[in-house]
């Protein structure tokens, strides 16, 4: 049984016990524990269930590569599923529950899947569950979904907050082991801005566990001194608990900081996402030990040999009392020696190599440890945990030579460099035969925009496994990175280290090499997803020869650890099955993030009210205080209507229309786009942009203008104002302001760059208020000022500027309602005061504010089109009867040629008309006009559609606008319109101008 040793544990503060619970059981650990070490210290070997077969699972690793020990952490608003126990630092009150079982971890009904596993090989679901057809949705799939998944779905809003942080550095060093420290030290010596990040809470990486003498002293001294030296450099930042998550183009790196996962509390962000722009990157991300493939290698009690050392040294935890070590390399002997030195029993070292005569095996033998060379594990004995191993010859088929009782199997299949960050942005790998691993190919590094490599790799991540070589290489990597970033490193001497020689590793991808199907179907490659050697072989047999096919067919490497333990072993099995070399088969693509990062961190601060910026007009708060019913329009919110008392929204809209038509209304039109276009070529530019002639617009005049895309479609409309000889103010729709400004700049910057024109989006600089209705002039005149508002001095479609009351104002005589109307722009800072002044002055005239819906109704009564209603990206001005706004004199403008194409001049294009229901009701939004018959694809033919539809309070009936085949020639004809769930609705084709067709009211 796993247990805490009476002493030891570098990370532990044994004077600080910590209470936590697992599956409701109260347990105790120490400050410095991870959840995994604390569970092991409490003898909790079984920590979860696997994905497919619900096999019992114990801790197999000690870091980010752990596939088994995943728990639901916390409860309620702090529940986090699939949290890795090996990277979860213990804190007071931590609550964890195990996952993927029912009714309990110890007794799981789903474990039946393991019994049925012979019927559930890789890809079994592609071959069955096809009949009866309806069963997939109603029976099979729900069952599969229920048994799949791992952790619990959270059911409450997250209690924590998150944040983003941006930083630019010269050199980013990822990984705080001895390689990363040395690289950072050398880079730092050059004066470059250096950032060193380490995913765990401690510096030094594995060197601390595998006691290394550096510069003649214990590694701890060197690590401490180096960290101190780095902290003393002003140009160097060091951060622990920050993981390099992804490397992207142009030196963009994501890092993931876990600020208070180890100490959950309100008030601090839980995670911080670092967005780093680095000139040069050094990945010193270490290596991960590989498991070995032997039957029963998934039982709780089987773990990585290096992990066992980590638990002993760092946490004072032994994985069990009697260990069998199985290996194909010398490194695992370190575990044997460490156990021996701590007085723990090593039953045997099973070494698959024919001989083991390096210094470490020799030392093991000298210590009296039984070493069996040329041997393999035929099978691990035990049902829910390790009870012993059966030994066989590696070269055989698994005939059992001996059995050894034990409760731990520590395995080592060699080391795989962590190449993820190197690979994310295109760094290539090379297969190293001697070490039996893929390592970065230094000649094929990720290339930046300047054509030079921007990622360096060092330490174990580069394939070096001896401390001496690592330090020398890291020294050079730090210097190279600093140099490439434009700095001069101080070339000192690399520290030296003493490492014992190690005999070569011998690749062992299956144990024993001649294992039959029975054994192969019990050799796990992917512990979480339950992918076994036999599954990969089946995939190869069935022709899934590409490594990507095998991955997808078997789900190998698709678990939460993304194949950190399983990929290379699976790849080796695949290449063997195909009779190909490992490098020829290649790896799957490494995708960010290195380990999963929280969605909360990715979203950052942008949630709730901060989700997107809320744009507010100067009168926003007044609207809010006066009961505005809001409508989101782009990033703005506009009042849809202002319901009063017990009024419904619909009633409010009807009142607002009536009041505006009969007395006077105020509209906050500040959101309308206002783009200033200025310069010697401004007129020529606008002539190209608008379909109308703009350059000839006289000073003091306004003109309604249309903008089309180069494909001919109407994209925006608005009033253009000639401000001065060389400047125009272009009004756009609310939603179009930013888009149209971008559109202008795109043309100016990419096509018409020789034009002398500046544009400026002044939308937010002005508050604009439409004063609309028969009493509009009276209200403005009541405010006084120096502007003559009468019809002769300021006629329709003219503008002027001066003072209204105490306000500097521009007054545009334009109308979107058909009423007498002045749109008045004042500086944004004066907007609210002006609004209040208008309300006060208008009181005697019965002034009321109105919202967007009243605006829409009034424009529809008047037959004015609305971008987004009458247009949808497929409509040209000619469809809308706007021929008059398309210049015939101009040589060219955007959309001119497009609108000459066959389909644009087709007389069968649907045309704008008004529609009046026969019974006075309101046509449904989006209804289509039915035509006879069906098309070749069996769809009902149509001959038109509704584009806008409202109840008109002015006319007391439903009115609509629509596009209809040959519409303008069919006045009076009655069409049938779709009405979902009811009989078609009849409507008559009429003029789209329902109100004041002569335009008398707006022109008084």
């Amino acid at each position, binding site marked *: 049984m796993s247990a805490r040793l009476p002493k030891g544990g570098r990370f532990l503060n044994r004077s600080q016990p910590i209470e936590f619970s697992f599956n409701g059981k109260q347990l105790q650990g120490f400050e410095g524990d991870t959840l995994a070490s604390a569970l092991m210290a409490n003898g909790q070997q079984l920590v979860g269930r696997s994905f497919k077969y619900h096999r019992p699972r114990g801790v197999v690793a000690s870091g980010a590569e752990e596939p088994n020990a995943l728990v639901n952490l916390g409860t309620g608003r702090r529940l986090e599923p699939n949290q890795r126990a090996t990277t979860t630092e213990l804190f007071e009150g931590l609550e964890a529950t195990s996952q993927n079982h029912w009714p309990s971890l110890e007794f799981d009904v789903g474990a039946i899947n393991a019994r049925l596993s*012979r*019927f559930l*090989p890789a890809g*079994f679901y*592609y*071959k*069955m569950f*096809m009949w009866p*057809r309806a069963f997939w*949705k109603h029976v099979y799939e729900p069952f599969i979904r*229920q048994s799949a*998944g791992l*952790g*619990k*779905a*959270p059911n409450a*809003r997250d209690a*924590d907050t998150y944040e983003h942080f941006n930083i630019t550095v010269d050199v980013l060093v990822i990984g705080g082991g001895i390689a990363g420290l040395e690289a950072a030290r050398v880079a730092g010596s050059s004066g470059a801005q250096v950032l060193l990040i380490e995913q765990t809470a401690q510096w030094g990486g594995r060197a601390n566990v595998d006691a290394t003498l550096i510069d003649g002293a214990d590694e701890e001294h060197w690590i401490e001194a180096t960290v101190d030296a780095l902290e003393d450099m002003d140009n160097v930042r060091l951060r622990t608990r920050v993981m390099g998550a*992804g490397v*992207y*183009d142009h030196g963009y790196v994501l890092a993931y900081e876990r600020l208070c996962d180890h100490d959950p509390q309100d008030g601090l962000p839980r995670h911080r996402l670092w967005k780093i722009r680095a000139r040069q990157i050094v990945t010193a991300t270490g290596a991960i030990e590989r498991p070995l493939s032997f039957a029963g290698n998934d039982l709780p009690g089987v773990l990585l040999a290096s992990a066992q050392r980590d638990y002993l040294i760092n946490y004072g935890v032994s994985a069990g009392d009697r260990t069998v070590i199985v290996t194909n390399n010398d490194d695992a002997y370190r575990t044997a020696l460490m156990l021996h030195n701590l007085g723990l029993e090593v039953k045997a070292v099973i070494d698959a190599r024919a001989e083991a005569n390096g210094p470490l095996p020799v030392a093991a033998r000298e210590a009296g440890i039984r070493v069996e060379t040329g041997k393999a594990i035929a099978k691990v004995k035990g049902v829910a945990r390790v009870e012993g191993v059966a030994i066989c010859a590696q070269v055989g088929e698994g005939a059992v030579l001996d059995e050894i009782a034990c409760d731990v199997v520590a395995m080592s299949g060699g080391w795989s460099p962590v190449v993820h960050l190197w690979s994310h942005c295109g760094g290539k790998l090379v297969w190293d035969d001697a070490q039996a691993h893929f390592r970065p190919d230094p000649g094929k590094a990720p290339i930046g925009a300047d054509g030079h490599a921007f990622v360096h790799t060092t330490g174990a991540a580069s394939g070096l496994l001896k401390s001496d070589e690592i330090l020398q290489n890291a020294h050079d990597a730090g210097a190279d990175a600093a140099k490439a970033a434009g700095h001069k490193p101080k070339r000192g001497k690399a520290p030296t280290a003493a490492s014992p020689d190690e005999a070569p590793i011998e690749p062992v991808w299956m144990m024993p090499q001649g294992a039959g199907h*029975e054994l192969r*179907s019990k050799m796990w490659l992917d512990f979480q997803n339950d992918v076994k050697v*036999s599954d990969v072989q089946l995939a190869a*047999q*069935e*022709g899934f020869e590409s490594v*990507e096919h095998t991955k*997808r*067919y078997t789900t190998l490497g698709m678990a*939460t650890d993304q194949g950190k333990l399983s990929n290379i072993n699976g790849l080796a099995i695949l290449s063997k099955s195909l009779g190909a070399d490992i490098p020829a088969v290649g790896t799957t693509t490494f*995708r960010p*993030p290195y380990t999963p990062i929280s*969605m909360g961190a*990715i*979203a*950052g601060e*942008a*949630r709730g*009210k901060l989700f997107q910026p*809320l744009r507010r007009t100067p009168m926003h708060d007044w609207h809010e205080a006066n009961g505005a019913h809001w409508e*989101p329009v782009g990033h703005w919110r506009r009042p*849809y209507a202002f319901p009063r008392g017990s009024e419904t929204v619909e009633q409010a809209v009807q009142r607002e229309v009536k009041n505006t038509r009969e007395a006077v209304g105020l509209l906050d039109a500040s959101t309308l786009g206002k783009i200033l276009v200025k310069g010697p070529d401004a007129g020529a530019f606008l002539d190209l942009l608008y379909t109308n002639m703009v350059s000839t617009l006289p000073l003091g005049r306004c003109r309604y203008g249309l903008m089309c895309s180069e*494909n001919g479609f109407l994209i925006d409309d608005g009033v253009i104002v000639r401000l001065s000889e060389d400047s125009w103010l272009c009004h756009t729709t609310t939603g179009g302001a930013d888009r149209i400004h971008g559109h202008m700049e795109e043309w100016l910057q990419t096509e018409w760059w020789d034009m002398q024109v500046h544009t400026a989006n002044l939308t937010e600089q002005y508050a604009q208020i439409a004063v609309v209705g028969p009493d509009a002039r009276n209200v403005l005149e009541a405010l006084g000022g120096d502007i003559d508002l009468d019809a002769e001095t300021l006629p329709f479609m003219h503008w002027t500027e001066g003072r209204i009351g105490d306000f500097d104002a521009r007054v545009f005589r334009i109308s979107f309602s058909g009423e007498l109307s002045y749109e008045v722009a004042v500086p944004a800072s004066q907007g609210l005061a002006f609004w209040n002044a208008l309300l006060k002055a208008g009181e005697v005239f019965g002034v009321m504010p109105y919202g967007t819906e009243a605006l829409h109704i009034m424009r529809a009564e008047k037959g004015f089109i609305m971008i*987004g*209603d009458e247009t*949808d990206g*497929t409509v040209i001005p000619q469809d809308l009867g706007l021929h008059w706004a398309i210049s015939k004199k101009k040589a060219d403008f955007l959309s001119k040629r497009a*609108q000459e*194409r*066959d389909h*644009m001049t087709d007389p069968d294009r649907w045309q704008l008309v008004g529609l009046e229901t026969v019974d006075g009701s309101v046509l*449904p*939004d*989006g209804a289509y006009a039915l035509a006879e018959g069906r098309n070749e*694809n069996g*769809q*009902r033919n149509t001959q038109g*559609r509704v584009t806008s539809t409202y109840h008109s309070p002015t006319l007391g009936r439903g009115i609509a606008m629509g596009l209809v085949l040959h519409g303008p020639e069919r006045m009076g004809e009655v069409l049938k319109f779709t009405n*979902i769930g009811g009989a078609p609705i009849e409507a008559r084709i009429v003029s789209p101008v329902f109100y004041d067709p002569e335009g008398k009211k707006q022109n008084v």
Partner: protein
Amino acid sequence: MQRYSVFAVAREAMRQHTGWHRAWASRAPRKSYDVIIVGAGGHGLATAYYLGKNHGLTNVAVIEKGWLGGGNTGRNTTIIRSNYLQDPSAAIYEKARSLYETISQDLNYNVMFSPRGVMMLAQTEHEIRGYQRTAHANSLQGVQTEFISPQRVKELCPIIEIRGPRYPVLGALWQARGGTARHDAVAWGYARACSDMGMDIIQQCEVTGVRSENGQVTGVETTKGAIGCNKLGIVVAGHSGVLAEMAGFRLPIESVALQALVSEPIKPCMDVVVMANTVHGYMSQSDKGEMVIGGGADGYNNYTQRGSFLHIEETVRALVETFPIISRLKMLRQWGGIVDMTGDRSPIISPTPLGNCFINCGWGTGGFKAIPGSGWATAEMIARGTPGPLAAAFGLERFREGRFIDESVAAGVAH
């Protein structure tokens, strides 16, 4: 063909699964074929399949630069729906959706089509009107959709926050027979069926040139040698522009990266597909338990199959806002595919300026859902030499004529 069934699995279980055949044969290219399809993605394989099944053409090779199904077929978010606005789109996507209903049985390969329902959220007044219009159009197109209330949205998908605060859910367009399928299985199922009909699927074979005589295609040059053909179908999505150049014509296409991501797997909490176009994100939960997430395409042209993190951020932000519970889930993996975008965001299924050379491309961000219908229509066009009714509107000439099929009003950014 070796039949797949529960009985076959049971039989094989008794003999350690040694009797399973290759799903598709691996053959060297022959000298020439009646038809060569370039691109063994879903669309290319489906085209080959329906050439054989509907038109009796089986002397066919499907040539693939990499591994079959390795492009966008294996990179998408597996959503299947047909609630399109314009008639030609609705016709081909509904054809595809209806073929998906029986495809597992047709191919004897379980592609796990799951008609769990797709909803597109309306979060502005403008979207409400757009989706209502789509519902009207769909009612005439034989596509079953309905506009549903926020309360119904919440019933169907309890993890949605319908009250905002920023963009409250105002309703949704609901297609109950939309859903998802296992994307890889679609490619594998078609490949297996094609191989069974005697067609050659040739992987790791890159086309390096297109041969022609007198304006008629005569074959292709590849890294495995020259191969002759009477008819050529180019079905290569993101690399269409490259192939078109070899064939001597240009396409109105831009290639951009579209990204997706998945969370770690959790127990079932979401039984429908939800698309939120105002905030730019969509999400469903796979049978494995992962939340499958997608969003908008990148804003610049590229071929790298990597995207910028900016878009991942935007998408996740949108979905954390829409589904607050996912805040504490973790992103497991992100990836990108190269999508071929046309000016009107609708596909091209068309003869080309080169005689007997046909092209199927331009599916942009929405190709997976169309695979069976696209293959059906493309096969018909290649077999007859001219587009049938499903493909007729998607010809290249529409860009010259201005006859766009613009779905922007209904489709927004997301597929």
